[in-house]
């Protein structure tokens, strides 16, 4: 039988606030275990949580950027369960009154726009980490509570995705948005952006969802696709054999690319949610929402549209340039100084991106600043250097951080536009290659490129290519 997959995603984004959600401890990643803790995040007796207001602001921003309505009266609830990484024996989260509800994101998939519903976004605290790694002289498991009490937003989608590619497109879009908002560093490997997937199958044409499995521990876009595809195969096999899917939580194993059962429905926790009596309800005023709206940056979708309509960039360019807020900013900063959108776009997508990829730097660390790149492009526009030489200059700028004029001067790379000099070079080339000249004049016009190449070589790339073309044509055609 043919099946239709139904996917819903739950994403945990760790927020980039300086301090934790309910205490003043630092949220910095990678510190000495348990060095960023206090009585509150250690769950010591008598300690009480105090809400970090920044978390609410970030949550409002996330809600506005994903077309959600913002809940006016917010209540934190306790989710009760025992685990050694959970110091209080409960997680402070939100239950029936999440801060954002009823939102959506539009994704483009094979030229079509699909709308993916966002059920809810809520604020909560993270748990600590169990460390099972070998520590000399210790065979027990260890608990690191640095991460305990760091702020998270859980973003829950509707079961609206119908293929692994849609799931990836949605996740990438969401990832891009939280990065643009500056509320999450987006680091999947460090667990700043974690995803659980609810996956079920139903016969093609059916509208009744099948029983779902919840997939956990997926920490890259590649694994998400892998996990969902594996799960589709697994469920299809069971259904084909007349079996039944069990509602359960399954753990993805990145080493094997498979999922295995973690706990079944009957072992599911009764979390005994109830409003946390240690925290008072948070009332979000319209003014607060408008204030947050005012701090929203231009989001990728709007930016892309603007690049296409105002700057007349092709869709492909616009898409690539808005991939990250920093890249788009780099492009726009350069464009401000050198207002030829397509030329700037070519360079940013081409030389700049290639150089960065080669040495693994991010755009914000690019040694060629937008100002320097604009200077280079101006030199090219003025005809001081050719496009080809510009690439050589760029590489030098990237290595040394020097200004382009300086490099051009030092290396004597100024373009030769002196017609006398060019004519001399052309004459020399034609003299050396009488056979080809005869063939060309005999009708083999494809040889024209050969002559251009020879002249450029003779000039060490410095000859003005337009002039070379023009003069060569004259000479050859007599």
């Amino acid at each position, binding site marked *: 039988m043919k099946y239709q997959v139904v996917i819903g995603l739950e994403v945990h984004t760790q927020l980039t606030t300086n301090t934790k959600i309910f205490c003043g401890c630092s949220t910095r990643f990678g510190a000495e275990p348990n060095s960023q803790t206090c009585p509150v995040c250690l769950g010591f*007796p008598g300690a009480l949580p105090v809400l970090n207001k920044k978390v609410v602001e970030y949550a409002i921003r996330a809600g506005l950027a994903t077309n959600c309505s913002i809940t006016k009266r917010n209540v934190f609830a306790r989710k009760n369960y025992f685990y050694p990484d959970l*110091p209080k*024996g409960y997680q402070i989260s939100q239950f029936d009154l999440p801060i954002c509800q009823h939102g959506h994101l539009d994704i483009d998939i094979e030229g079509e726009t699909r709308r993916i519903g966002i059920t809810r976004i809520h604020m909560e605290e993270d748990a600590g980490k169990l460390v099972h790694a070998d520590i000399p002289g210790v065979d027990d498991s260890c608990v690191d509570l640095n991460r305990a009490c760091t702020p998270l937003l859980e973003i829950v989608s509707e079961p609206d995705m119908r293929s692994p590619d849609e799931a990836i497109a949605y996740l990438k879009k969401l990832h891009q948005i939280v990065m643009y908002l500056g509320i999450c560093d987006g680091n999947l490997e460090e667990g700043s952006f974690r995803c659980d997937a609810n996956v079920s199958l139903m016969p093609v044409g059916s509208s009744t969802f099948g029983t779902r499995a919840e997939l956990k521990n997926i920490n890259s876009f590649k694994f998400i696709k892998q996990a969902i595809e594996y799960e589709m195969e697994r469920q299809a096999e069971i259904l084909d054999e007349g079996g039944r899917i069990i509602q359960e939580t399954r753990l993805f194993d990145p080493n094997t690319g498979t999922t295995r059962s973690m706990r079944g429905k009957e072992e599911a926790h*009764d979390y*005994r949610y109830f409003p946390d009596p240690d925290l008072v309800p948070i009332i979000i005023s319209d003014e607060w929402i408008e204030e947050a709206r005012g701090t929203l940056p231009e989001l990728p979708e709007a930016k892309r549209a603007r690049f296409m309509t105002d700057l007349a960039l092709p869709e492909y360019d616009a898409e690539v340039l808005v991939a990250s807020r920093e890249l788009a900013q780099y492009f726009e900063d350069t464009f401000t100084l050198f207002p030829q959108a397509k030329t700037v776009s070519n360079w940013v997508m081409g030389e700049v991106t290639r150089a960065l990829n080669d040495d693994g730097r991010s755009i914000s660390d690019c040694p060629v600043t937008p100002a320097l790149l604009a200077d280079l492009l101006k030199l090219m526009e003025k005809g001081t250097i050719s496009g080809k030489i510009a690439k050589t200059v760029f590489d030098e700028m990237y290595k040394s951080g020097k200004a382009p004029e300086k490099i051009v001067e030092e290396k004597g790379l100024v373009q030769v536009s002196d017609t006398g000099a060019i004519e001399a070079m052309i004459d020399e080339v034609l003299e050396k290659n009488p056979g080809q000249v005869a063939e060309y004049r005999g009708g083999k016009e494809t040889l024209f490129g050969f002559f251009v190449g020879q002249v450029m070589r003779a000039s060490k790339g410095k000859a003005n290519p337009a002039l070379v073309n023009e003069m060569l044509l004259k000479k050859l055609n007599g």
Partner: protein
Amino acid sequence: MEIFDLTIHELHEKLQAKELSSVEATRAMLARIEAVDDKVNAYITVTPEQALAEAEAADKRIAAGDIATLTGIPVGLKDIFITKGIRTTCGSKILSNFIPPYDGTAVARLKERGAVIVGKLNQDEFAMGSSNESSYFGPVKNPWNLECTPGGSSGGSAAAIAARTATATLGTDTGGSIRQPASHCSCVGLKPTYGRVSRYGVIAYASSLDQVGPLTRDVTDAAIMLGAVAGYDQMDSTSVNTPVPDYVAGLGAGVKGLKIGLPSQYFIEGLDPDVKRAMDEAIALYKSLGAEIREVSLPHTEYAVATYYIIATAEASSNLARYDGVRFGHRTEDARGLAQMYAKSRAEGFGSEVKRRIMLGTYALSSGYYDAYYLKAQKVRTLIQQDFLNAFQEVDVLLTPIAPTPPFKIGEKLADPLQMYLSDIFTIPVNLAGTCGLSIPAGFSAAGLPIGLQLIGKPFDEQTILSTAYSFERETQWHQKTAPL
């Protein structure tokens, strides 16, 4: 009169006049503890070295002219208060080895004013009880009759006042845990309005009901202690940012023209005749002082105990989850795997009353039962709050008994938890309503056991119940009687 018999304000005068040093006062108190606490068992931990060091520091402050009313005064703390470097057990085996790394807000405020902490006081385990019999460290005995309980859960805090083993103490009150033992030990006990005193550094029993308050020899001392610990604290989101008046300055307001309400539901058949007589005498006295007495109604009173035992136990079941043997406290020696470590550490560490309440609360929050129990209880709680607000439209304070009977015998109610729960019927509604109430000595039974009177005030109007109590105290002098230890 011995040094340990003095009130805060009496001792303060002597310290200020340099007739006495804090070290002398502290030594006298430590000697008194040494002499009588074996009989009373009010203390779980006595801290002589720290106390004497704090007393020396206080004497230096006094010598430098930097004296607050509490500077150099020996006080005791219920063992529910987190104290940096001093073992804090909450009356439980599970915390019997727990030495906290920080001070709570109320304790820090006492220390800032130079109070000397002489030790940590016995209590019902995790403040769950009305008789101090659930403590892992053994029951506290009532100094007025060593066969009787001092009440609970702040039994040690009340017994230490009656036994003259602390000048003043702090307790906590979740359903009557300050007022009822104060009543049973003939001292003044004040439960402030919820939000008046920070709960930061107070081990939580039921977070929406717990409140810190003083137990003292007289009303003036209660005013002094409340003034020291009250006020907004940014570490407690539920603390309320409202001004703290000078309670001592307001004590002499008198009761002329004051409207005192008598809730009909609190003067019921079956009230102990001695308690009834004490209430009648108090009402007559207030009338003679010019107060206007009116009957009022708190119609939802009968649901208060049931409501309390759902909300308090639900919150407790969650609050006590952190005692898992992972980071602090008792961990079983004998466990294979995580599940067993949890189960055994908690089975060994908690006493039976605590387990009973954790189970009750877990049940009340369970899926399928939440609406019928917890949610309904919250609704009833709102009705009970409304009862009080309505009554306070008509009157300024309410006058009621604290407990239906004088102190009962140790062991008498242990077999019947429900009967024990019902003995808190007059104090529980005040916690549910979140308002303030105090207990003041109002006489003795025929058998010579203390009887307390409760005055309930409007939210954040501790001042009026203190001044109303002060008028009573001036006329009656019950607080001058000392326990025959």
